[in-house]
Every structure is written in C-alpha cells, then in structure tokens.
C-alpha cells in the first residue's frame, strides 16, 4: 500500500529548475532511497515534502489524501545540515522540539525516556548541547526526529558525523523503525548503505527523475552481461573457446582455480556461455555480476547527461 506520493511536482527558483515534473510513490513500511548528484533537486523535494517550501506545480498525498499543514506532525525530518540550540539543555530542548511536532508534554517525556534509555543517554538530560561531542549531538538529533512516532521519516545523510559503531547502531534502528511500521525516505551519497537498506530507489539528475524502481530491479537493469567464472583448466583453451561473441575482461590464474571475467558482446542466455566454455575447462563456479549501486549511479547519471548533450 502506498503511504506517500508526489505527483508531477515542479519547482523553479528564479531561473533555475529545481524539480521538473517529478513523481514518486513510497510504499508503506518500506525504505525509499532518494538519490542523485549534488544539486540535482533532492533537498528541494525533501523540503517540499516537509512543507517548508511549496511546489509550483504538482500535488502531494499522504495515505491517499492530499497532504495538509497538520500532516507535518506525521513526518519526522533529519536534515543534512543539522543543529540544535547550543545553550539549551538536552532534555528541555528535546521536549520543546517534540511539542512543536504536536506532542503533549507528558507524551513527549514518556517517549523521550524510552529513547534516552535505549541510546544510553539519560545522563545527558541536564547537560547543555554545547557540552556534548558531535556524535552525541547527532544522537540527540536523531531522537528528536523520531520521538513523535511519525508515519513518514525523512533522513538526509543520516550517517554523516557518526563513527562506524554508532552508524551501525543507527542502521539497526532505521531497520527496526521500518519493522515497527514506519515508512522511510532516505537520501544519501553512501551507495553501500543504499544497497543495504533501500527497498526502492528513485534517482534524480538535473531536476528530472531518471530512474525509479525496486533496488534489485534497477541493479538488474544496469547489469552489463558480465560473468565471473571459476574453472580448472588452461586459460588459452578457454579464451579460444569463448570466441568472438564474448570478451574477456580480466583473468587470474593460481594453483587452485583460475578465474575469468567475461562479457557478452551481444544478447544471449547464460547457457550459451556455459556451453561454449564447458568443452574447454571444468567449471567450479559461475556467477553473473550484478552492478553495485555505485556503478548504477554513475552509469545512469552519465547516460542522462549524454542524452541531454
């Protein structure tokens, strides 16, 4: 079921196009990756979802009805550029921010207690924010983002500023939030975490959405018919057997097993490649290489840029 969608959203700042006819649809209880190069329009879209800015054209829907101002209470937003009131005490500030999201003081206190205990931050309650380390401040900020139990969470580069241990903790929490029913829009340049976390991605380049789909499908789509084959036998024979339909990208040889990376030059089935190679060597392993998100990102953006030129 769809929790949130943006339909045909456009936004122009003076003469620069920030978003051109962008639509996204986010399924309930999923993690949606919003990707794109710097300046593509991701932050503008995120701000539009948060109703910080209004779109010039297009509409937003939350739970299949048009989004209204009061819906901000259903959204939790962790912006890329973060900050807290430096001179304010952690607890006081957390309550204030929760109240601004519409929580009563009592509910805010109860929810905060849960999170502060979970993250082992109870001792920070009466400290001023400026007394905390940067990592600690990030944790406080994360808690204030989720404290009002929003249906839709928007994380913009959530891992920046966290050490690997805390980043892992955060990753677990994000997955847990999804388990508990939250829907998450996740924007990052860290493609590793996209592969790990995102069920679905949309890629925006120069204000236009250029890719949209389940993460696996997108990766499949960008595979370039490359196979990795481990075998016992002579590379010369294998090379000969592969003939002109296949291109050897790289090969390594060692005592236990040789390995070769091969690319189809035209369309064909996996079996054809196997059939070609079986007479020449004993196959130990055969695997199609699915490109990582990193490669997908670069390829998709380059293709889109070339098209525009």
């Amino acid at each position, binding site marked *: 079921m769809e929790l949130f969608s943006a339909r045909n959203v456009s936004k122009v700042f*003076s003469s620069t196009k920030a978003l051109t006819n962008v639509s996204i649809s986010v399924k309930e209880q999923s993690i949606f990756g919003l990707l794109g190069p710097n300046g593509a329009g991701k932050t503008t879209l995120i*701000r539009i979802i*948060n*109703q*910080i*800015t*209004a779109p*010039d054209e297009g509409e937003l829907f939350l739970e299949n009805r048009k989004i209204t*101002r009061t819906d*901000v209470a259903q*959204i939790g*937003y962790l*912006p890329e*550029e*973060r*900050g*807290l*009131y*430096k001179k*304010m005490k952690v607890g006081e500030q957390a309550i*204030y*921010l929760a*109240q*601004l*999201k519409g929580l009563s003081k009592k509910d805010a206190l109860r929810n905060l207690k849960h999170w502060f205990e979970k993250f082992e931050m109870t001792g920070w309650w009466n400290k001023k924010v400026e007394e905390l380390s940067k990592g600690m401040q990030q944790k406080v*900020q994360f808690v*204030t983002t989720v404290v009002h139990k929003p249906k839709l969470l928007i994380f913009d580069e959530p891992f920046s500023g966290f050490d690997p241990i805390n980043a892992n903790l955060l990753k677990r929490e994000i997955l847990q939030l999804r388990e508990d029913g939250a829907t998450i829009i996740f924007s990052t340049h860290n493609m590793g975490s996209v592969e790990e976390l995102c069920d679905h991605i949309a890629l925006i380049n120069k204000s236009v959405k250029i890719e949209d789909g389940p993460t696996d499908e997108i990766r499949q789509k960008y595979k370039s018919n490359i196979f990795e084959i481990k075998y016992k036998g002579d590379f010369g024979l294998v090379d000969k057997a592969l003939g002109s339909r296949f291109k050897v990208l790289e090969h390594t040889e060692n005592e236990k097993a040789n390995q070769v990376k091969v690319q189809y030059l035209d369309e064909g089935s996996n079996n054809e490649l196997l059939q070609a190679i079986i007479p020449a060597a004993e196959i130990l392993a055969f695997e199609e290489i699915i490109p990582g998100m990193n490669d997908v990102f670069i390829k998709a953006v380059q293709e889109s840029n070339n098209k525009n030129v």
Partner: protein
Amino acid sequence: MNKTILILKQEYLKRVKKKSFIILTLLVPFLFAGMFALIIFLSVKDDKQERTIAVYDESTLFLGELEQEGYTRYHFIPKEEYDRLKTNLKTSSFYALLYIPEDVYTNNAAQLISEKQVPLELEEQISRKLSRFIENDKRQKIIAETGISDLDDRLAATRTSVRLNTLKVSETGQARKSSSEVAFIASYAMGFIIYFFVFMYGAMVMRSVMEEKKNRIVEVIISSVKPFQLMSGKIIGTALVGLTQVAIWVVIGLIALLAVQSFFSPEVSQQMGQSLMESRQGMGPAIAQPAGEQQLTEMMELIGNLNLPLIFFSFVFYFLAGYLMYSSLLGAVGAAVDNDEDSQQMVFPITFPLILSIMLLFPIARNPEGPVAFWGSIIPFTSPVAMLARVPYGVPVWELLLSMFLLVLATWGSIWAAAKIYRTGLLMYGKKVTLKELIKWLRYKN
C-alpha cells in the same frame, strides 16, 4: 496558534531565565539608585568640610563684616601676610585666599586664589556675600540721600514676574490650562522610551533569528511550524521580555526611591530646602516660598490637564505598532544574512528613520504644528516617535487618525514583506544578499 504560543513561551523563558538578563535587570536600577545615593551622599558630606578663607581687604569696606556661613570661616589678614601667603598657600592652614581690591566698589571684581579647584557653591557664596554687602551699602546711601525709609519694600513691590497661563480651547469650547514645558518633557520622554525599546528589543529579535540560522536548527523548526509562526512567536515573546524588564525596573525603582528618600530624608530635605532658599535669595525677595508652593500645585494641575487617556492610548498604540514594524524588519534582516558584517550593512537603512525621528524631536518641540512635525508624524517610519512627541501638545483628530491608519498599513506591509524575506532567507546560505535579491524574494510565491 498553539505552536506560536509554544515558541513565544520558549523565547520568553529562555531570555528571562538567562543569568545575564536577571543580573542586568536587577543591577541597572540599583546602579542608578546607587549613583543617585552616592551623589547626594557626597554632596552632603562635601559641605561638612571646614574651610577657612584668608581675606586681604584692600578696600577696608568688609573688615569684620564677612561672617561664617555653613562650614566656611573668613579670617582677615594684613597685606604682609597676604604677600607671604600668596606663594605659600599650600603650607598654610587656609583653604583659599580672597583678595578684595581697593576699587571693588566701582569695578565689582575680587580675586579668589587657591591650590585646589574651588567648589562652585563656595564661589557663589563668596560672590553673593560681596555683592549683597555692596548692594546693601548702595541702598543705604540712596535711602540717606532721598529720605525714603521704606525703599526696600517699595522696590520689592516693583518686581514683577508674569506667569503665562496658557489656555487651550478644545472643540467643545472648554478652556484648559496648558503648559508647553510640561508637554515638552512628556514629549521628549515618550519619544526616547519608544526609540530605545524598539531599538534594543528589535536588535534582540534579529540576533535570535541569526543564531537559529547559524545553528542550522531552523530547518528542523520550520519543518514543524510555519516560518510566520516562528517569527511572530519570537517577536511577541521578546516584547514580553522587554515589558517584564520595564515592569521590574519600575517596581525596583519605586522601592529604591522610597528607601533612599527615607534613609537620607532629614538631611536631604534640609539640604534641598536650604539650597532652594539660597537660590531664591539670589533672585531677590519677590519669589518667596508661597509662590513656590503655588508653582508646584500648578504643575500638578498642568500635568493633570494633559490629555492623559489619549497620551496613554497613543503611547501603547505607537509603541506596539512601531515595535512590530521595526522588529519584523530586523528579524527579516537576521534571516537574510548569515554573518555579522552583512547584518550591520542592512540594519542601517532600517534604523535610519528611527534615528532620524529622534532628531526630529527638537524641531517638533519648537513648533508642534510645523511642516517637520506634520510630515514626521504622518510618515509611518518616523511616526511612532514623532507623533507621540506631538500628542502632548494636542494634535488634530484627523491627523492622528491618518497617522495611525498609515502606520497600521506600513506595519502590516512590513510584516508581510518580512515574512516573505524570512521564509526564503532562513535556508539561504553563503550568498551575499543584495537589495535586488530581496525584491526577488518578495515576488516568490510561498
């Protein structure tokens, strides 16, 4: 609306709970009271100093005639001692050396020589003593010549001081006493109070906005509340801080004044009474004590005759409208810039009319009906100060209404423009903001 109140409360408590606010608020009145007390204390104490003045009277007119007054004694010395003391005053026990030349009667001049700066009061005392003596002497001569024995009384009867009681005729034909002096003081005081309040707390709003922008917390906040709610909560909260501060000052000031008065009471009132008497004596016998009392009651009457309800109403109105207008504009500046230097550049054009309006106070006092007063009090950016300065003198109703109407329009417009600049500026970083840019922001839809 709820969220605006939440922000307002937060802004208010944050400032009021600050140590610097508490210290400043409590300290300022005590500083003033302390300074006041110190001045009185010192002036009372100073007068207790015993001084002996050596007098060399070449004219021989005054010999034995200069009597001790207060703690000052006069000691007559011959010429040889005067010559010796002139160079050795420091080592002598005399405070100063008074030389009365032979021709003092015709030249009206004497010399006071001392090591230290002679207090003004002492200077006046000596000058008065000498003048009175010569005056008296001259009078006696005239009495002797003319044979008019009650010359003093007759002369006193000729002295006249016409008090001008200004009557202002209101539209209903009622004549009321008015005084331009009282109006002048009221006008200045109110002009300044508004000026300071708008300036101080407007700047506070601006700094608070800049801080939020610098801290980057603002993006989180405006994902929860509308920028307009944030801005209005901030402005109203800060205004309440100011009102709290003023209220505390008034209370402390009154308490301190009472305390100081009762503590110093006998001496102070004696002292003040004495100096009042002295100054009256200087002016001559005509304005005597009863006249002073009369003046006081008259003053009270004049204050009562100012249109106090109107003054109070216009003070509240112009104060609120002026503060709203300027603080919203300053808040917009805070949102538009992201460093202090840029803010200073942009603050000046906004505060310029405010500073100008203070400079208008004097021309307004000279002619409350003149073109400067008229235009100053009609144009919205100067009208909060200028119109308030005119109200005590009396302003035609249509002018007051026009000025208020225009001010409301301008305040509304400022808030509208500020809100637009505010919401665009808050998330704009690293861009030097020009006027052209600002105008572009005004055209942005949302």
